């Protein structure tokens, strides 16, 4: 048995010997024995430091609030993957991997905040002024402002404003919180001026501001949010595996299943005859020349 690492790398995250596992200098067993929490360990992992009690409390709130979001792309993916009955981690991984440019774009939102706060610092502007520039930049370009709006919680994300308030109550609100609040203020004002409906802050906007003020870099914050969601994806996947129908298409179920044939609505090319191999070249050339196919290319 070899106990060599899978990759040869210099790393400043952790080392492991036959005697102990050490994370950023701390023996993980001793961290646990001392009574530190899982959220404390997240600060050690990503920031190499023990957080204050209030910082730990804020992260605990944030991760707890983000863990479950019922039917979102992540849970839906995890459930869909279970239909083929792969090993459970496959479904969980799929759930985590749904987090991209639209679903929980944590890193992008963080980089956006950093970009405009950098601009404030370089151009001697206030955070509020930089936030107004951000809102105008995005809205002038008819682009959505990251951190604002949620397609299901159209009256305001139930997690977002309470996260802001919790940050203020705990006193962990810093420059990011102030900046995000200003983004929201200018966003609302401009939409009102333009006669548009109210669109509230979402959990990425509020949550990411909180995580950034806790000292997490954009990708670390994204990791915390998207991987925390993995726990609920696992729950949904296990429920589907243990209590749902494999393949999700049975006609014997009293309810039409997710993959029932009747769920297909086809809007592609009309049914057409397959050309013979003898006809193929002429057929293919004519088809390519007509260009009709291009409207179907994806």
């Amino acid at each position, binding site marked *: 048995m070899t106990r060599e690492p899978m990759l040869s790398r210099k790393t400043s995250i952790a080392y492991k010997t036959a005697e102990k596992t050490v994370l950023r200098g701390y023996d993980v067993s001793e961290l646990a024995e001392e009574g530190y929490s899982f959220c404390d360990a997240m600060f050690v992992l990503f920031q190499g430091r023990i957080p204050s009690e209030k910082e730990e409390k804020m992260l605990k709130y944030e991760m707890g609030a983000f863990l*479950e979001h019922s039917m979102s792309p992540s849970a839906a993916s995890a459930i869909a993957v279970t239909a083929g009955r792969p090993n459970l981690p496959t479904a969980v991984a799929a759930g985590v991997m749904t987090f991209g440019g639209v679903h929980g774009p944590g890193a992008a939102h963080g980089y956006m905040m950093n970009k405009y706060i950098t601009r404030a610092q370089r151009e001697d502007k206030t955070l509020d002024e930089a936030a107004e520039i951000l809102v105008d930049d995005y809205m002038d370009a008819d682009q959505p402002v990251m951190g604002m709006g949620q397609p299901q919680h159209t009256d305001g994300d139930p997690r977002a404003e309470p996260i802001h308030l919790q940050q203020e109550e705990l006193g962990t609100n810093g420059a990011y919180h102030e900046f995000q609040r200003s983004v929201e203020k200018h966003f609302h004002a401009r939409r009102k001026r333009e006669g548009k409906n109210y669109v509230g802050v979402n959990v990425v906007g509020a949550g990411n501001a909180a995580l950034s003020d806790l000292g997490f870099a954009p990708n670390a914050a994204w990791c915390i949010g998207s991987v925390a969601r993995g726990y609920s994806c696992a729950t949904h996947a296990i429920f589907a595996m243990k209590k749902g129908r494999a393949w999700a298409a049975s006609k014997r179920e009293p309810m039409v299943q997710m993959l029932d044939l009747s769920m297909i609505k086809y809007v592609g090319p009309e049914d057409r005859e397959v050309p013979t191999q003898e006809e193929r070249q002429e057929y293919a050339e004519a088809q390519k020349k007509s260009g009709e196919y291009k409207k179907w290319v994806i």
Partner: protein
Amino acid sequence: MDKKRVIGNLDNPGLPYEYDKREYGTVPLDTSRDPFQWVSEVAYKNTHRIVTRGYDTTELMEQGYGITDVMFINFQARIPTLAEDQMLNYILILSLEDGLSMPAAMSRMVARSKTFLTQACGTSILAFGHAYGAYSAFGNMLLSALEKGESEGKDIETIAKELVANKLGDPALGVSDLMLKDPAAKRIFARAEKLGVAGKYIAFTKEIVKAAQSASSTPVDLDLLAATGAVMMDLGFTPEATWSIIAITRSFGAGAHYIEEVEREEHTRLGESLTPKEMYDGPDDRPVPPLADRDKAATPAKTSTPDEWKAAFEERKKLHGSGFSIIEEIHDPSKKTGVKTLGKKI
């Protein structure tokens, strides 16, 4: 659609149906049954609330609950005791990071392709199988052994001895030489006992360790798999819940490895990595036969008798990467407790 011709074998009388008579077009909506909905015992949300197992998640946070409490709620539909919550925090800290082990390595390899962090984190979860992080295999082994043994009136010492007789050396046993010098695994049991959350699974696992130490010719002891697996089951988590919780927890660590890989290493391009010939032990270099001579060069796979099949099978096993030297034991429908294992070599 009117067809001009019959295609291939589709008018073969051996077909049990007339293929050409089969309809085109999609299936109409089934209105004879309830329409499809996402059915869930776990959670729902509406425009204004997110509710898991009956509890509004924002209200939970405002009441001072946190992520570990929500894990109990999600997986077990209950609020944990303070001791249970402390124990889960303890387990998660130990599960967060493991140096440059497989989840970290997999995350770093994905990072090298210039991907999203979430791709790397998801990939790290896939490291957890039936050898590495075999929480499902371990937990279900405990459950089935206890169920069978208890139904036969055996005590846990006897059940453990019988289990070890079959499973010694299995990576899912949770007793190995991995932690002979590292006290972390034994500390987990001690903490569980101190917090008053130790139950039948820790007790049974201790018996397994004793039996394994007695049966093994080399030193073995409780390892991290069995220590965390047994405690999680005493906390009420199923083997599947444990499997996913630990894998996901490690994924945070894998995220840090993704970040460090991007920060400190280069990206890898398609075609960049070479495989030196000294690492290759396949067939010698040989000329590609002209396409016109393919039938002379080809060796058809078809066999006709069991003996021919067996001979061909044995020959094919000699080619690594063909898959013939791996057997996956499938569930035996004649046995109620058939166990499926993966990747066992013949």
